[in-house]
């Protein structure tokens, strides 16, 4: 065993500093967001708090901009990304992922004027359609890969992109299922059509810097524990199957 490698593990640093710095971008409901009181809440935040508890250290949230989140991880602005990040092969070349904990896919929020005319992402593949998504996300990648001919506009945050469709400035918003579901529930009534059949396969996982097998090992075992002792399901129910949390957010 390479004891030097173990010593250099992020785990060691977390324990030494007594804090677990978690990077995410608030706004990706229901994974992470800011509530009315200015506190960070969401599925990932609950998991992160459990993780910090399991390590016996303090939980420190770092709310950062999405398109800088991987550079920020690599430049050690935080120890782990827990931000509903899809484990893509491209990202995986730059960072390591723990085992996926949720699988989502891209879905479509469509402006109601296209009801019935657009049935799947394939129908959007035409320059006359303005499709929005968020910068640097798998939504964007999916658009570029699968709907290359549409007019694509990227935005800094999810609501900006989605509101563009609500306001009629764009025709469709492509994004992960959970967010689209939440947004459709809140804002979409009468304005949007939700095509909720995912057309991509996107496992979501926590990301850390490369070359740290100890940390990966710890994370995978922590995840197994979380999933099997019922906490994971409780969180899942709280954030994905009920909407009670919405009232704390708005």
């Amino acid at each position, binding site marked *: 065993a390479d004891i030097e490698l173990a010593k250099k593990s992020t785990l060691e640093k977390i324990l030494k500093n007594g804090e677990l710095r978690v990077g995410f971008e608030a*706004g990706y409901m229901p994974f992470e967001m800011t509530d009315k009181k200015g506190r960070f809440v969401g599925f990932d935040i609950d998991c992160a708090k459990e993780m910090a508890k399991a390590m016996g250290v303090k939980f420190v949230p770092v709310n950062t901009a999405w398109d800088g989140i991987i*550079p920020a991880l690599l430049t*050690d602005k935080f120890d782990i990304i827990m931000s509903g990040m899809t484990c893509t092969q491209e990202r995986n070349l730059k960072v390591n992922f723990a085992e996926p904990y949720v699988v989502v896919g891209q879905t479509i929020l469509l402006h109601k004027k296209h009801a019935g005319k657009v049935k799947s992402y394939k129908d959007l593949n035409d320059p006359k359609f303005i499709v929005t998504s968020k910068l640097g996300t798998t939504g964007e990648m999916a658009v570029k890969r699968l709907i290359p001919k549409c007019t694509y506009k990227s935005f800094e945050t999810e*609501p900006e992109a989605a509101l563009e469709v609500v*306001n009629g400035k764009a025709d469709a918003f492509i994004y992960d299922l959970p967010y689209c579901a939440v947004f459709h529930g809140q804002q979409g009534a009468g304005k949007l059509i939700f095509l909720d059949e995912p057309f991509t396969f996107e496992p979501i996982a926590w990301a850390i810097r490369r070359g740290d097998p100890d940390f990966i090992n710890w994370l995978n075992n922590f995840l197994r524990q979380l999933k099997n002792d019922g906490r994971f399901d409780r969180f899942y129910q709280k954030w994905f199957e009920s909407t009670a949390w919405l009232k704390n957010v*708005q």
Partner: protein
Amino acid sequence: MYVSSGLEPRRTRKYYLTWGSFFFALVFILVGLLYYSTQMVDYSWRWYRVPQYFFFQEEVEVRAEVQGEVLSVKDQKKKALVTVGGEGEKETYTVPLSGLWVEQGDFINMGDVLASHKEWQVGILLQGLWLTLKVSLVAIIFGTILGLFTGLARISQNPTLRWGAVTYIEIVRGSPLLVQIFIWYFVFGTLINSLLNRYGMPSIPPLWFGVAALSFFAGAYVAEIVRAGIQSVHTGQNEAARSLGMSASQAMRHVILPQAFRRILPPLAGQFISLIKDSSLLGIIAIRELTKATREVVTTSLQPFELWFVCALLYLVLTFTFSMLVQYLERRTVMS
């Protein structure tokens, strides 16, 4: 103002009244137009949701830390003393009378709520505002110190000092603050923290790199202010001091700087106002000042119109307050 009495037609009181009220009418119409067009696009204004981002009431619950029975509830004016006991343990809690949840004799599990009361908490926008102010203040302090020395170096005869100062000033004033913030955060921040970690020292939180970026930015502008201030002191003052036998630095310290100081103060305060505005960029590197706080709230509340107007208003209030101060300082400078 550009007055030359006879050249403008003579205006009556009525003229001023008419066009003055017309101005207010115009403002009114513009606001009305804005409101009307939001109605057209089905935007529902929810101003009532805004105050909670300034202050909100939080339910604070007092929970039992032992298991047992409520032994007694003693009334003490607005407070109540609740004693819970069982199995040899006994604890007493002071709670507000109005929020009492239990009565004497109730059976209590560990963690049960005994009473609750509401407490006012500062909301996210106010916290952001406070951080904005704090960061600007710290940055202007460091910036002033840095600017003072750079300004002195700028007018020094020593080429190293002078060129060094010029290089610093030109680089900082020639590139966008945003890029400087990124460089501090991603380049210097990474380097410094990695080196610190290497030698087992705790790392510096990102807030401080933001403050460093702002301070260095302000420092370059303050340096020019300091230079102008010093050069505005009449040469005769320096000559008088030096001909009394003072050294260059003594003359600077005792004669030039105290006089330059008064002329520096108003533009320095102006720089502080700029800094308040510039600090809005810190949100980019995860510092939750006012603009970032607003963005976060907008993301979840989806009420962009109200919140952005409120945000702009808060900045206006800040800058307006401080520019009043600047004007006051300027009046005082002119007088003395």
